[in-house]
C-alpha cells in the first residue's frame, strides 16, 4: 500500500466516522459505495468536501466523471495524483 493510498483510507475513516474500521479493512479495489464498504449518498457528499478541503479538488456532485472517481480507493488515488501533477 503506498503512502497516498494509506492517507486516503485514513481520510475516509476519519471523515465518515467509521469507528470500527481500520485502514487494513478497506480493500483498495473494492467498491466504496453500496457494496463493499457500504457507504451512502451522504458519505459521498462528505467525502467530496473532505477532498476539497485537503487537496483543493472540486468535484461536480452529479457528474458521471465523479462517480468514476469515487468507485474505489485506487480511483481516488488516481484522481489525487492527477490533480497534484497538474498543479
Amino acid at each position, binding site marked *: 500500500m503506498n503512502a497516498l493510498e494509506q492517507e486516503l483510507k485514513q481520510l475516509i475513516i476519519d471523515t*465518515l466516522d467509521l469507528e*470500527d474500521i481500520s485502514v487494513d479493512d478497506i480493500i483498495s479495489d473494492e467498491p466504496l459505495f453500496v457494496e463493499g464498504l457500504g457507504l451512502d449518498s451522504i458519505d459521498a457528499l462528505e467525502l467530496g468536501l473532505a477532498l476539497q478541503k485537503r487537496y483543493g479538488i472540486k468535484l461536480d456532485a452529479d457528474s458521471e466523471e465523479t462517480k468514476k472517481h469515487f468507485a474505489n480507493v485506487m480511483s481516488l488515488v488516481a484522481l489525487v495524483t492527477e490533480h497534484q501533477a497538474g498543479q
Partner: protein
Amino acid sequence: MNTIQLTINAWNAWTPGVETREQWDEWAEDLRTPLDQATAPKAEGIPPMLRRRLSSLGKMALAVAAPLARANPGIASVFCSQHGELERTVQLLTEVAGQQPLSPTQFSLSVHNAIGGLLSMATKDPSPMTALACEDGEVSAALLEAALIAREQDNRQALCVIYDEPLPSPYPRDDMPPARPYALALVIYVGDNPAPGACPLELQVLSPDTAQGALLAKGGDEPEALQLVRLLLLQKQQQLTLASARHTWRWCKLQVTEP
C-alpha cells in the same frame, strides 16, 4: 375537569450511572445518585454503519428506544427533546461564521427528527413518527401527543421517547436545564385491555390557581422525565404534579380493578 387516561406498558431509561432496572430502583429509593457525566451508551441494537451517525444524544435516545421498538414492530412513535441536536447546529453555525463549507452529514443529522429517522432505518420500520420540541412541560406534552396518536392506531399503542442533554458551549450551561443527560422511552397504550402489571395513569389539567401554587412549590432541577420514572417505580407515590410556565398537569395512578 379535562382528563385523559393511558397505560405505561413498558419503559427504559438512561442517565449517567443509572441504566439497569436494579439501578433505577436504587435511584428511586434515593440509594443511588446519577454521575455528572458518563460516556453515552453504545446503542447496541443499531447496526454499526448507522450507529456511527449517532451523537451522544442519539445514542442514549436509541439505547432506550430501540429495544422497545424492536419488541413492538409497527409501533408509531413520538420523539421529544427540548434542545435536540443543538451541538451539531452549533458546529454548523461555527462553520458558517468562519465561511467554511458545511458538513453535509452534520446538516442532514441536525434536524429534529433525524434520531427517529435513524431508528426507522435500523429497524426497517416505516411506521409514523412525530418529533416534538417543548420548552418545558415536555413529559405531559409528549405523552399527550403519544396518547392521541395511539388512539388512531389499530394496536392502540405508541412509543414515546423523551431525551435531552446539557447545552453545548458557548451557551452558558447553568441558564437552562437539564444539568445532565437523560433519555426515557415508554410504550403507552390507550384502551380497555392493558398488559398485566402495567401502570394505568390519568392526566389531569389543573386550574390556573392550583397551577400557580404548584409552580411556586416546584423544587429541584430533576428532569420531568425522571420524575415520571420515580412515579412509576415507587408504589407509595400516587401522583406527580408537573408545573410549567403555561400549564400544570397532574399524573395520577389509577387503581387496577381485578377481574
